[in-house]
């Protein structure tokens, strides 16, 4: 569709106010269109011109914070990362992400997802507690080791994958693509030693076993994380572990401070560490 002459677009917005409404309903608004407008820009115009009480979550406006996941013309996407002209229609239907309870209008309750994420220990787990509490340096990691998890670390916790996942839609026990992919991200980090802790949860019903590998999560992920791939790799690792074939590794050691080298001229001192 050619957007060159488009001056107005219609927003169909799913509204729900828990204090007033018994069920969500759709409302329509006409707003002026300008080239380059994102779906999020349009929502601000709807709020300004027609519906001051309209609620949604957003912050960075540049696809970084993960706040503005919403259902746009039937697909879970980031409002700030979706140009209206990409939709190839002048009607923009915006609803809250499916598979989450609605707090208000376009605001989904992400807490269950984040709670599962927390239970899967999304941080480096090591036995050297002293070093973890009072870091004395950096852990050694090669570029190849970085590649094992780099793609999965781009996740911004927007929840789009959870909204697209057919298993999440019916099975409340399934942990879902985001928490599972993030568990795998840490399991495959050479600095981490938390596999046995995460395994307690992953081996059971809440693990990756009900994933059908239909790949919807990866298709909608705005950051190219490919959670479906992480989940299949996680299955492989857990099966290898069951047969005692998982490669045992010692978590990365501290990198030695280079000796006998001087700072090149013109390179400023690093800022003071923020963690003491």
């Amino acid at each position, binding site marked *: 569709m050619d957007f060159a002459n488009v001056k107005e677009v219609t927003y169909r917005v799913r509204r729900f106010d828990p204090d007033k409404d018994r069920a969500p309903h759709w409302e329509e608004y006409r707003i002026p269109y300008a080239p380059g407008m994102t779906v999020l820009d349009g929502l601000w115009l709807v709020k300004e011109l027609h519906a001051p009480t309209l609620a949604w979550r957003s912050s960075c406006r540049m696809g970084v914070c993960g706040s503005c996941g919403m259902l746009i013309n039937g697909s879970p996407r980031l409002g700030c990362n979706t140009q209206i002209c990409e939709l190839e229609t002048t009607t923009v239907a915006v609803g809250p992400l499916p598979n989450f309870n609605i707090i208000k209008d376009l605001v989904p309750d992400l807490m269950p997802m984040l709670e599962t994420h927390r239970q899967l220990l999304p941080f480096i787990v090591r036995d050297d507690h002293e070093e973890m509490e009072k870091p004395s340096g950096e852990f050694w990691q090669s570029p190849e080791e970085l590649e094992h998890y780099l793609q999965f670390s781009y996740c911004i916790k927007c929840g789009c994958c959870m909204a697209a996942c057919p298993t999440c839609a019916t099975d409340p026990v399934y942990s879902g693509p985001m928490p599972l992919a993030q568990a795998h991200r840490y399991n495959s980090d050479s600095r981490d030693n938390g596999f046995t802790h995460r395994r307690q949860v992953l*081996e059971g019903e809440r693990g990756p*076993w009900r994933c059908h590998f239909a790949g919807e999560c990866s298709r909608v992920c705005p950051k190219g994380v490919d959670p479906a791939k992480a989940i299949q790799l996680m299955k492989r690792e857990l*099966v290898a572990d069951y047969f005692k074939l998982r490669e045992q590794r010692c978590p990365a050691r501290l990198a030695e401070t280079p000796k006998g080298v001087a700072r090149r001229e013109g390179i400023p001192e690093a800022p003071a560490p923020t963690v003491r």
Partner: protein
Amino acid sequence: MIRDAKLWTWHVLAGLVIFVFLGLHMLIMHLDDVVNIASLNPAGGHPIDWANVVARGKMIFFPVTYTVLLGAALFHGLYGLKNILFELNLGDGVKRATTVVLALLGLGLFVYGTWAAFASLALARSL
């Protein structure tokens, strides 16, 4: 309770067993023109000719492979069915009951099928 990691692993391995054994079945019963294993169809002609069926029925190889295939197929199918049912958002009690019913059903069918396979061996040898 056996954890999902183990059940899923055996589900996949059972799938492999089914693949191999069904492949064998296809070879023996349907692809005899392409790969003719003479010792399994000693009477010549079609694999389901009476003489061939009786000849194969007398070999211990068949009840053993049928039993393995039956076990693999029952486990693979019933575990798959359990997963489909569990995705319907069942309560904990219903889940437990479903697991027990499916396990008993699988066990029952396995025992019955094994008995039938070895009974057919005895029958064929008595002919």
